[in-house]
């Protein structure tokens, strides 16, 4: 169905960002404006998600140019779920930031940059065009560079370069690949590309020479953004320097956009024909290494922030594992896991922010006894940590269950690694729990006394942010079935692209739809 309002999800944050620039000296109107914008987008996205719960696809052709010529925005189950989860996480982190981000930092264009980040993220989820995906990535990255260096402390300055330069190189490779894709296939629209690939495989014509090379180049680009195995080294250093609310937002959104790009383009287009035999083993090995090395890295760390940051990597491994099977169940599991991970991981980071504020440090040696003084923080952390580990009725359990069961027949060794990783995750979470919350109160908590007293300002906003996400994490676990149903529709549309192509590209649909079920 056509829905020309889809552009609103990009226009609202863009307009808000411009408006907040004008109000940059006045924090309260900026906060209200930002919250109104985020909440209205969440309401829009949720209402559309309810409308397409039976697996329909909403399409908006920009400027009424039909599909392969103009830019298409697509709101299907995949992008809808991720948009809702992303906006929910953003609202929580944003509210958390009201009490956590220093006023001087807030005045340095914190609000406009947040909105710009959402422009990029929403556009990446919505766009149906490969080059537009590049543009969306760039908008998102520009905003994230700004947020990373916001506050301009020395550590941020020195660590920002790693992230900045790596992403610049990755973006350049993305441009080259997009150009080559156009040269090879004559189109950049993802649905049209899927049609191209499906036509070829139905007719038995091999794909153009070098198509596999394109797949691998794209895999490198998305893998770097998503922190897959050999390309994850930038992540821990970046996430522990910036303000904690921003780190929480990054952990929830940025890597997931990379994973989303793989989830969108590979099953539809780039894992077809010969490329399939190259890409799937790479993904499988990368998934195993990401899960295991990520969690080992987390176990070896001794700072709460670093443990959580390295955990982001290990969790990405589960999603890649689900994708690497390229079956409907595997993809649905990966998608469900992404949703719950965005919520749970961000809530852990938000808890970590409050812990730091109370204890004056995030070094596990220096904090302790938090449970006695801050019982609800302990409860929130406990629930979120167990969701991450995957204890049933909480959300992580269902994601892991689907992925590991689906993987047992395809790649039993990956499932085994997944189980070991889950166990090690429990170990690292227990480390934070026992040393941070359960241990007797340790002395050195006053070592930052001077500035700590001034810094424990009103934390109500921070607690609200944590509350939103923890409640959402529990609800995702309790309402696993409806969410999984939508994820399953999304996965069906990825493995059988007919619906997607027909919705986006009705002109070209005739060629492929006579022999449905192509797409490799």
């Amino acid at each position, binding site marked *: 169905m056509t829905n020309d309002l889809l552009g609103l999800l990009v226009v609202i944050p863009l307009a808000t960002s411009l408006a907040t620039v004008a109000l940059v000296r006045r924090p309260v109107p900026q906060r209200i404006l930002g919250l109104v914008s985020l909440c209205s987008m969440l309401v829009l996205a949720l209402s559309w998600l309810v409308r397409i719960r039976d697996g329909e696809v909403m399409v908006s052709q920009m400027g009424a140019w039909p599909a392969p010529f103009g830019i298409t925005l697509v709101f299907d189950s995949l992008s809808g779920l991720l948009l809702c989860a992303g906006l929910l996480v953003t609202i929580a982190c944003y509210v958390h930031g009201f009490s956590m981000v220093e006023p001087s930092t807030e005045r340095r264009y914190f609000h406009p940059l947040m909105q710009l980040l959402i422009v990029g993220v929403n556009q990446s989820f919505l766009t149906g065009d490969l080059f537009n995906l590049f543009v969306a990535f*760039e908008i998102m990255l520009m905003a994230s560079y700004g947020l990373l260096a916001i506050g301009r402390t020395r550590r941020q300055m020195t660590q*920002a370069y790693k992230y900045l330069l790596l992403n610049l190189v990755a973006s350049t490779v993305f*441009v080259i690949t997009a150009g080559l894709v156009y*040269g090879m296939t004559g189109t950049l629209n993802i649905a049209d590309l899927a049609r191209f690939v499906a036509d070829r495989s139905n007719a038995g014509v091999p794909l153009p020479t070098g198509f596999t090379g394109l797949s691998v180049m794209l895999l490198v680009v998305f893998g770097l953004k998503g922190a897959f195995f050999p390309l994850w080294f930038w992540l821990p250093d970046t996430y522990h320097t910036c303000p904690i609310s921003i780190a929480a937002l990054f952990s929830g959104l940025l890597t997931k956009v990379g994973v989303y790009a793989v989830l969108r383009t590979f099953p539809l287009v780039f894992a077809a024909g010969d490329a399939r035999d190259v890409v799937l083993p790479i993904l499988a090995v990368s998934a195993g290494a990401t899960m295991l090395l990520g969690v080992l890295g987390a176990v070896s760390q001794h700072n709460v922030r670093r443990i959580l940051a390295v955990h982001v990597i290990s969790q990405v491994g589960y999603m890649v594992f689900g994708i690497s099977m390229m079956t409907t169940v595997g993809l649905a599991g990966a998608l469900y896991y992404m949703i719950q991970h965005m919520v749970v991981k961000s809530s852990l980071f938000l808890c970590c922010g409050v812990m730091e504020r109370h204890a004056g440090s995030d070094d596990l040696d220096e904090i302790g006894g938090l449970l006695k003084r801050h019982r609800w923080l302990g409860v929130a952390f406990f629930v979120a940590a167990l969701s991450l580990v995957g204890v049933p009725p909480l959300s992580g359990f269902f994601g892991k269950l689907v992925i590991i069961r689906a993987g047992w027949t395809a790649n039993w060794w990956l499932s085994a690694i997944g189980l070991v990783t889950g166990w090690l995750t429990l170990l690292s979470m227990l480390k934070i729990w026992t040393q941070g919350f359960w241990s007797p109160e340790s002395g050195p908590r006053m070592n930052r006394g001077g500035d700590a007293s001034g810094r424990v300002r009103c934390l109500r906003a921070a607690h609200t942010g944590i509350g939103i996400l923890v409640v959402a994490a529990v609800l995702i676990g309790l309402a696993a079935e409806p969410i999984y149903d939508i994820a399953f529709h999304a996965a069906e549309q990825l493995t059988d692209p007919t619906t997607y192509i027909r919705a986006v590209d009705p002109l070209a649909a005739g060629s492929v739809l006579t022999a449905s079920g192509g797409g490799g």
Partner: protein
Amino acid sequence: MTTVLAICVAVLVTVSVYLMLSRELKSVAMGVFALGHGANLSIIAMSGSPVLADGGLRNPPILGVADLVDPLPQALILTAIVINFAVMGFLLTLLIVTARRTGTINVDELATEDRPDGGRAGGDR
């Protein structure tokens, strides 16, 4: 024409890789800049020569109109140039701020700067 472009791309990428391996962030920034140009030129090279061997013009594959050069690669490059330009502006600004705050833009010195006791007095360079 495509050969000339291919050589240009090769030279640009070589230079940029050499620059990016330098320890000075200024050179790294220039390397990234050169890599962006290399990417843009490679898209032009990929789109092929607009003039065919028989003297006619290459038709754009998606529009199917004669007597027009395919405008899409140019549009892609134009977008990429603008984005590259913006990112470069940000990178250079960050370099200036870093130099002001830490007094150096050398990667090795910044790495020692990162240690808690390795900080040195800031100052303009």
